[in-house]
């Protein structure tokens, strides 16, 4: 049973996306699409014919599968409703980050494959943002990993104490910025735009259509939910099951869905309250978050818990 918990991510990730969209619309005084809209979009895309640029090579067609498979692999490593899963031996939190990096690497290559300026622009910006985000994310996870004495996500989730200390709060704030950047949300990127000059993530996907686009979008939803889950595992592990009794797992599942709902609210709130930053202002935001992550480590060394 516990081996199949990753299916939760595959099934529920479009729902989280729909939820954020709906919440955002409500906060902005709109009705917005229904929360199930991403599912309809995926089904519609899966049933469409595809048009592929003549310029592209096999990389373009392989990328959606590589991105999807690497994201699912990451989902298997991360404990979702129970920490009792042997997939922890497959890798740890560093492997998760590098699996995301593998997906991003191929996505950026696919952006360059069609030989258009938009794709190249998207790839270039995505890789630039990742340069700023990756060390910061790693450092904020380091604090948690060091205090747990392990980089295994399940061990981190099991050993986190519930009383929040300054290092945790600092690390969490850095991690939130990392999640915002990694999921391509305001203030780093605008997920709702196809405006040439501002798009980052969408730029790389511009040439995709049909089932390829469906897989890319779906993988993106999954990555978003995975990052939320990772945040929950590392910073709010309260309620996650570690025993394996069916009743407790059911309770843990309920708590997990509540946590995801709260995260979705937080994301919608951040997106509605902030404006998108100009691309070259990002280093100050992300660099600031890096300093937070570093401070968290320093305070951890000084306070020692």
């Amino acid at each position, binding site marked *: 049973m516990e081996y199949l918990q990753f299916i939760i991510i595959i099934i529920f990730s479009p729902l989280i996306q729909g939820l954020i969209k709906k919440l955002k619309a409500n906060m902005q005084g709109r009705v917005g699409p229904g929360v199930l809209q991403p599912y309809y979009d995926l089904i519609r895309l899966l049933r469409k014919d595809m048009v592929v640029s003549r310029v592209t090579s096999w990389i373009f067609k392989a990328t959606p599968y590589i991105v999807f498979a690497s994201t699912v692999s990451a989902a298997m490593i991360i404990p979702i409703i129970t920490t009792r899963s042997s997939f922890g031996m497959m890798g*740890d939190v560093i492997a998760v980050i590098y699996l995301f990096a593998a997906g991003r690497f191929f996505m950026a290559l696919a952006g360059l494959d069609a030989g258009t300026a938009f794709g190249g622009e998207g790839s270039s910006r995505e890789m630039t943002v990742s340069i700023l985000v990756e060390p910061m994310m790693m450092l904020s996870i380091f604090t948690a990993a060091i205090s747990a004495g392990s980089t295994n996500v399940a061990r981190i989730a099991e050993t986190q104490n519930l009383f929040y200390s300054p290092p945790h709060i600092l690390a969490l704030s850095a991690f939130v910025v990392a999640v915002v950047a990694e999921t391509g949300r305001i203030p780093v990127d605008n997920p709702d735009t196809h405006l040439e000059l501002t798009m980052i993530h969408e730029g790389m996907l511009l040439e995709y259509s049909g089932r390829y686009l469906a897989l890319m979008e779906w993988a993106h939803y999954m990555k978003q939910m995975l990052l939320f889950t990772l945040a929950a595992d590392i910073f709010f592990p309260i309620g996650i099951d570690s025993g394996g009794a069916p009743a407790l797992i059911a309770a843990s599942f309920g708590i997990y869905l509540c946590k995801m709902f709260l995260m979705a609210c937080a994301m919608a709130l951040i997106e509605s309250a902030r404006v998108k930053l100009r691309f070259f202002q990002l280093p100050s935001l992300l660099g600031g978050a890096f300093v937070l992550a570093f401070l968290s480590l320093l305070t951890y060394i000084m306070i020692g818990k």
Partner: protein
Amino acid sequence: MDPESFLSIGAFCFVLGAVFSLVPFRKGKSLLYLLPALAALNFAAAGLYLAFGEPANILSFPISSVFGFLFCGDALSGFFIIAISVLTFSVSLYSIGYTSSMKHQGLMGFLFNLFILSMIAVVTSGNIVTFLISWETMSVVSYFLVTIDRDKESAKAGLLYAVMTHIGTAFIIVSFLLLYAYSGSADFAGIRASAAGFPLEIKSLVFLFAVIGFGTKAGVIPLHTWLPKAHPAAPSNISSLMSGVMIKTGIYGIVRIAVDVLGKGPEWWGIAVLVVGAVSSILGVLYALMEHDIKRLLAYHSVENIGIILLGIGASMMFRSGGLYNLAAVALIAGLYHTLNHAVFKGLLFLGAGSVMHATHTKNMDDMGGLMKAMPYTGLFFLVGSVSICALPPFNGFVSEWLTFQSLLLGFSSASVTSKIVSPLGGAALALTGALAAACFVKAFGISFLGMARSGHAEKAKESSGSMIAGMAVLAVLCLVLGVLPGVVTSILSPAVYSLTGAVGPTSAMSFLHIDETAASLSPAMILITMAVMSAATLAFVFVAGGRRKLSYGDSWDCGIPALNARMQYSAAAFTKPIRMIFKRIYLPRRELRVSYILKPFFVRSIKYSGEITPFFEKFLYEPATDVIQKIAGKVRLLQSGSLHLYLGYILITLVLLLIFGS
């Protein structure tokens, strides 16, 4: 068979290869590279024997009571012999096709064999003199290989290389002389036995000189300047060997002297190596990003990877001085594992670059493009190399970087506050390096192999010959094998690491690593299988959910403007522009825009743009140093006036002085 006979057969093959290369015939000459390939197999076998066996004397040839030639091998030598042999085998295969139309074929073959033999000699040298002679042979032979094309660029690069490498050798000689003076022994074994009794200042001095000397060969910043010039100037099979294994002899030297011979040192040694590693890795990859010359880009990545290797080795030294032996073993395995991995993937990438240059006659990535279709195999192998160097799972770079991350995280359990702060920062540096490397290889691969052909040459590119593909294929397969079977590599490494640190490090099985201290495990084979199964499942799923759908080809989206052309694609310079702007404090970019008008300001006749970054170390370190040296040389020149009378005067003065003080 015993290791000695494997070694002698191997050495015999090299000598045979070298001699036959000089025989003046042309037809089928490149088939002579089968000899070094055969030699490499023998050496690999001998390396395996040494890696698992007892330290053995291979060849001893005394000249006087103190000095003589002594070749011996232990587990560490064995590991480096394996690394050298693996790359030699593939590069030899590759060279069959690559050198077939070369101008100086005979000389090339001769030097090629000699070069590899000298590297093997370096890692098996048992005493100071043997080491220095082998080291110097390696440097001189590689100098001739760099300048084999005899054009202006390679001559200049060769000169810089010769100067830098001899500065390095000077430092090594001083450190060796200090060792000899204080131990009275010229054998590494003898020095090791008495090293514990040396005064600490002398040990530290030896350490510093050795790190500077070997660091010059390894190409650590700021001693790296020769590397991005010499590697691109050499033919690609040689660049592959130089970048893949020759610079690793610098790593071997550092490990041999600083870890093995000197033994446990104070904490700051490890921290110094770690900091040097962190700086080299970040600056190396930052400079790589700005290169549009594919071979220079790869050369700068060698600087980066040497930095990553030193992160592991430095962490290991740091833990060892703190008494954390098992962690020291994990970190040393990380560093040495990355040494082997870098030999494999960087060798592969340089061979790939060689194939590309062979097909397109350019080193400039902005003149390539679209090669994936014209050169499918080279493209695939270059992609494998790129994925490996970016440390993406499940390829080999990932495993060694994962181990490095683990060891840096473990730094927290050390007692000293400095290492508690330094090691996670080293981890952050590694994360930054990884992200930068990924950006750099998206650029390197994406601009050269994807999109539309950017020049006529690129349009007409043809796939390389069979032997070149075979050489690359061997390395590409190894990239995957070394990635999914980390247990094999750690078991080869563990005798060496055990003898150096007294601990075994991570628990491992075929495809499984487990670090007890962090309760972290990694199974790259499982990741590979999961990804393969998931890809297949996804493929099946989309067909079930969506049915058979038509796939049609069209033009790329052009905003309605007809006829997108290759010049409208993102270029290498455009791709890295945001990074250039973010890190402008480091790059100090300069740009020049010259516009000539027909009618100002509306009708432009031509626009000329040129941009470059300031080569920081060349400009602020090497140029001033060269100026000072030239000034001093100018002053010294006054002594040499050319007048015979003055020279006779000098002799007279010397004689008088000798008579006064000599008695």
